[in-house]
C-alpha cells in the first residue's frame, strides 16, 4: 500500500468523512473555520511559506530528510504500549499508550519543530522564534535551532515562566533566549501575541515556528502534516499488535497538535471513535477552564484564524484556567472546530482534580509519569474504558513526559524543595 504525504493510504474507498482529508481549501479554510486573519505586513511571509511548503510536501527528497531526522534524531517510531495492569484495574477496554513521551525532548512537539526547521533552512532565514506554554514547544524549537545553528528567541508568558522553571532553564542551556511576556493574562495567548509582534518587525530574517495547529494559514495544515506521523505509526502498530484498528482514540486538546497528529490518519475510519479532551480547570460549569469546544464557546477570530474562542459578550478574549500550562489557551485549532461541527470527534473536558488522579494512577500502576497535558487524555480513558468490553481497544496519545510537572505536583502535595 502506498501512502501519500498526508499519511492517508491511497485507493481507500470513500467514507462518510473522506471530505475531511481534503482540507483545508486553497485559502486555508476548514468549513467556516481557519483562514488568514493577519495584519497586512505578514501576508507576504505567509504566502511565501505556503508556496515553499506546498512545493516541498510532495518532494521525495524533503520527505526523506524529514523521515531520516525523525528516525535518527527523534528516535521514531515511538512504541505503542499495552498498559495491561492499568487496563485490568479499570476493568474494561484495553488501553494502549502511544509513547510520544519517549521522543527526544520528551513530547510530540519535536515532530513539528523538525519539519518547520527544515522549512526555515530552505528559506535561508538565520533566526527562529516560537511561543510556548508549558515550555515543551520552546524546548523542541531551541533544540532544533541548536542543531542547525539558528538564533532562537522563545516567548513565554511570565506566569508560565514561573510554573515551568525547569523548561526555561533547559531552553537557556540550549542557547535560546527566553523572553517573559508580561502583557495580558501572562500565559500562552499573550506569548503568541508577542511572537507575532516580533515576526511583524523582523519578518525579513525570522522564521516563526508555531507550535500548534492554530495560527494563520498555512500553519494549521503544515503542523498537522508534520505531526501526522503519530497517527500513521499508531494505525500501523494497531494492525500489527492488536490485529485490527482500535475502537477509540483519545488525546488532549489545547491548540490540538498532538490530537490532530493521532486522529488525522484515522479520520476516514468511521468505526474508530475519537475523543478530544480539553482542560476543564476548576470544572466547565464554573467558567474557570480552557475548554472552548466542550463548553460550546462562541465562534471568534484570534491569532490569524476563525475558531471556537472563549470570549465575553463584547468579544474580549476570556481568561483561561488550567493546571496545565500547555492547554491554557482560549482558542483551539480550526480543524478541530470543524471536526466538532461535523461530528467526527467528540470533545469533552477533564478537570484539574481528575487529571491529577490520572497522573498519579499511571505513574504508580505503569511506572510511566505523564505530562499533565497528557494526563487529561488519561483522565478520559478512566471514564471511557469501564464502559467498554475487555476485547475492545483504546489508543491514548501519551503526548509528553511528566518530569517538567514534578514541581507543580509537589507544590499541590505541600512539598518544597
Amino acid at each position, binding site marked *: 500500500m502506498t501512502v501519500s504525504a498526508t499519511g492517508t493510504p491511497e485507493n481507500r474507498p470513500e467514507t462518510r468523512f473522506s471530505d475531511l482529508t481534503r482540507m483545508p481549501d486553497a485559502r486555508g479554510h476548514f468549513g467556516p473555520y481557519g483562514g488568514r486573519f493577519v495584519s497586512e505586513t505578514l501576508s507576504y511571509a505567509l504566502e511565501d511559506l505556503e508556496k515553499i511548503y506546498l512545493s516541498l510536501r510532495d518532494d521525495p527528497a524533503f520527505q526523506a530528510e524529514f523521515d531520516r531526522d525523525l528516525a535518527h534524531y527523534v528516535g521514531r517510531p515511538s512504541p505503542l504500549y499495552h498498559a495491561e495492569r492499568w487496563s485490568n484495574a479499570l476493568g474494561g477496554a484495553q488501553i494502549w499508550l502511544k509513547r510520544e513521551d519517549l521522543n527526544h525532548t520528551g513530547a510530540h512537539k519535536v515532530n513539528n519543530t523538525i519539519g518547520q526547521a527544515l522549512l526555515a533552512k530552505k528559506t535561508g532565514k538565520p533566526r527562529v522564534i516560537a511561543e510556548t506554554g508549558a515550555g515543551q514547544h520552546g524546548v523542541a524549537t531551541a533544540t532544533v535551532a541548536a542543531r542547525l545553528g539558528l538564533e532562537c528567541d522563545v516567548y513565554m508568558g511570565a506566569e508560565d515562566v514561573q510554573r515551568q522553571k525547569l523548561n526555561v532553564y533547559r531552553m537557556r542551556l540550549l542557547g535560546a533566549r527566553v523572553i517573559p511576556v508580561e502583557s495580558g493574562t501572562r500565559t500562552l495567548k499573550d506569548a503568541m501575541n508577542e511572537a507575532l509582534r516580533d515576526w511583524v518587525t523582523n519578518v525579513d530574517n525570522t522564521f516563526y515556528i508555531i507550535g500548534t495547529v492554530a495560527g494563520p494559514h498555512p500553519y494549521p495544515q503544515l503542523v498537522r502534516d508534520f505531526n501526522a506521523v503519530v497517527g500513521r505509526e499508531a494505525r500501523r502498530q494497531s494492525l500489527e499488535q492488536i490485529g485490527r484498528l482500535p475502537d477509540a482514540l483519545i488525546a488532549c486538546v489545547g491548540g490540538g497538535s498532538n490530537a490532530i497528529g493521532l486522529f488525522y490518519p484515522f479520520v476516514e475510519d468511521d468505526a474508530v471513535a475519537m475523543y478530544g479532551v480539553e482542560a476543564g480547570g476548576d470544572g466547565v460549569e464554573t467558567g474557570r477552564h480552557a475548554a472552548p469546544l466542550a463548553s460550546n464557546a462562541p465562534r*471568534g477570530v484570534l491569532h490569524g484564524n476563525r475558531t471556537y474562542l472563549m470570549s465575553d459578550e463584547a468579544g*474580549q478574549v476570556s481568561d483561561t484556567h488550567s493546571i496545565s500550562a500547555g492547554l491554557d489557551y482560549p482558542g483551539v485549532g480550526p480543524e478541530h472546530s470543524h471536526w466538532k461541527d461535523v461530528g467526527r470527534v467528540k470533545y469533552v473536558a477533564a478537570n484539574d482534580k481528575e487529571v491529577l488522579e490520572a497522573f498519579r494512577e499511571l505513574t504508580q500502576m505503569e511506572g510511566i509519569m505523564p505530562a499533565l497535558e497528557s494526563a487529561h487524555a488519561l483522565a478520559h480513558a478512566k471514564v471511557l474504558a469501564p464502559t467498554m468490553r475487555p476485547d475492545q481497544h483504546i489508543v491514548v496519545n501519551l503526548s509528553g513526559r511528566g518530569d517538567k510537572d514534578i514541581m507543580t505536583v509537589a507544590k499541590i502535595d505541600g512539598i518544597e524543595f
Partner: protein
Amino acid sequence: MNRIDQRFSELKQQGRKALIPYITAGDPAPQYTVGFMHALVEAGADIIELGVPFSDPMADGPVIQKACERALKQGTRLVDLLDMVAEFRQADTTTPVVLMGYLNPIERIGYETFADKAAKAGVDGVLVVDMPPEEADEFGPLLKVRNLAAIFLVAPTTSPARAATICAHGEGYLYYVSLKGVTGAATLNAADVAEHLAPLREMTDLPLCVGFGIRDGVTAAEVAKVADGVIVGSALVNRIAENAETPEIIAGQLKSVLAEMRTAMDA
C-alpha cells in the same frame, strides 16, 4: 457621498493634506472620549480614527496595548463606541470617523448588526487590522451597501499583486503602514515611504495615507510632502498615558501635539 470622500475632495481643492489622529476609545475612561474627539477637530484633525479596545492587540506596540488595557478596565465595549460616535455627531456632522480595531468584537456582535448600528451612529469607515481583503468577502459588501468605507492596510512587504487586490477592494483611503513593525515602534524613513507610494499611485485613485512612526511636526511634514494624509496614533496616546491621573488636562495636550503637526504640514 461618504464624508471621507467629501473631506478628501475638499482638501484636494485647498491643496492641503489630511491630518488623521488616532485615539483608543475609552482611554483613560469612556466619558472623556467625545470631548477628546472635538478637541482633535479644533486642533486641525480632518478625519478621526477611533480605536476599538481589544484584549489581544497583536499589531500594536506597548503604548496602544496599555491604552487598550486602560479602556477595557473601564468596561469600554464596541457598542459604547457607537454611542460615543452618535454623541459626537450631535455637534459635528462633517468630520469623518473611522473605527479601527480587531475583528473579534465585530464577529461577536455579528457583521450585519454591527454594520447597521455603525451606519446609524454616524460612522464613515471601518478598518479591521486583522481582516485582509481575502477574508472580507462577507463583511465588505455589508459595509458598502450602508455607505461605510472598508479601509485596508498596505505594508512595505505587500507584493504588487496583493496591492492590486487591495486597491480593488479598498474604499475611503489606503492606509500605508510605513515600516515593518508594530505601532509606535520607530521613526519612519520618508524617502523609503515615497518609493513605496509611487507604484500605488499608478494603481489607484484612492488617497494614500501613511501611519506608523509619525511622532512630531517634522515627520508629519515630511510625510505630507509625499502622501495625501498623515496618521498619528502613539504620539497622542502617549500624552493620554502620561496624564491618565489628571484627565482634565489631556484634551489640551492632545491639541498642542496635533496643532504642531498641522502647522508644520501646512507651512
